[in-house]
């Protein structure tokens, strides 16, 4: 699969802010403004968190219609309850914790079947048609593997691999003991490992 080098290079070239958002100091300064009711500070904080929460809720919920609602429910809590953030955890931990509870609550309330077309394929100008087909197949297989996991397991995978959170921080977000996070990761990782072996074919092909 020759698509790997070009795509990997593109990801590595991406700025750090695109995955991690603004620095903690900046976010705390914005939250201080939100506590005073400043809309401009809130709007900036919303724009900083929107891509991160969107990606988290997309993988957690897998229902395109509900993602924006859950995201806005989350940020509405940030606007209305900013005073309740006591600084004992990182601001991102607090906000992701709210998003996790909102996402799970909406999932349980709606009880909708998973939307298999919730991630439309974008026109990728990098790989050619054959490589795009490979990528689409790969994404399909990963969706199947992730669909086998419970939302709780998906959240642990998402927060670890895509949001660079340590297991203690994930435990705070999802509101469970650190040991539970480790156990969930063990099972989720084993499921994904089966997928990886199947896709890789030859050892080291993806490395």
């Amino acid at each position, binding site marked *: 699969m020759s698509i790997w080098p070009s795509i990997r290079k593109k990801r590595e070239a991406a700025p750090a802010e695109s995955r991690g958002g603004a620095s903690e100091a900046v976010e705390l300064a914005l939250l201080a403004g939100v506590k005073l009711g400043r809309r401009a500070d809130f709007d900036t904080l919303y724009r900083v968190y929107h891509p991160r929460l969107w990606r988290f809720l997309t993988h957690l919920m897998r229902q395109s219609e509900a993602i924006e609602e859950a995201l806005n429910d989350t940020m509405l809590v940030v*606007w209305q309850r900013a005073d309740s953030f006591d600084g004992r955890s990182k601001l991102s931990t607090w906000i992701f914790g709210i998003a996790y509870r909102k996402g799970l609550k909406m999932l349980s309330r709606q009880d909708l079947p998973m939307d298999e077309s919730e991630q439309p394929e974008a026109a990728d100008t990098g790989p050619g048609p054959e490589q795009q087909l490979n990528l689409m197949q790969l994404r399909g297989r990963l969706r199947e593997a992730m669909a086998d996991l419970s939302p709780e397991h998906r959240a642990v995978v998402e927060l670890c691999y895509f949001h660079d959170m340590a297991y203690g921080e994930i435990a705070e977000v999802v509101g469970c003991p650190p040991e539970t996070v480790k156990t969930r990761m063990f099972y989720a990782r084993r499921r994904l490992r*089966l*997928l990886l072996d199947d896709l890789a074919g030859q050892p080291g092909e993806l490395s």
Partner: protein
Amino acid sequence: MSTVIPMEHDEHVAVQALLPWYARGQLGDAEMADVQRHLLHCQACRNELAAERPMQTLLNVAGALPEGGDVETGLAKLHARMQPAAKPAGRRWMPWALGAQGAACALLLGLWLQARQDGPDYQGLSAAGTAPVAADALVMFKPGTSEQALRELLQAQGASVVAGPTETGAWLLRVDARGLAALRAAPIVTLAEPLQPGPAR
């Protein structure tokens, strides 16, 4: 070939559960040492560690989202649900303040009506947009910085104030990447951070 680890081997389970964070250097010293010790004598867990990098590559590529939702549309919908009068908490409205606000509203309404009557039939592009100006950076200045020094620096770098100061004394600025770099290097600036992900405009 997949490696299936029987659950009764508690030490293998414990180590393999930590491998994603071990590979990222996100464990404490004690746990890092425990994992390293185990890996020294366990081929099965070394194989699992060797699979960690390809797994991260797989997730990064296959898990990348083609699109991330429309930020401004989402924000506009949320604005409709926000209650502007609910904040800031703890402040009391004085009758005189309400009166002054009413007078200000009346004045603004009058000016707007007059401007509507006096305005030209055409409208330039620069006046067409009513969207709020997005801030590019958050900047803090050294305590005691004079207004003149601040003004000269912002003018020199083509920066403008969008909002501020925040409670912590920070300012939200509209500034391009080169101006932000210059602000960061200025002796009167203590913090200059970009707010928008991706390359600055």
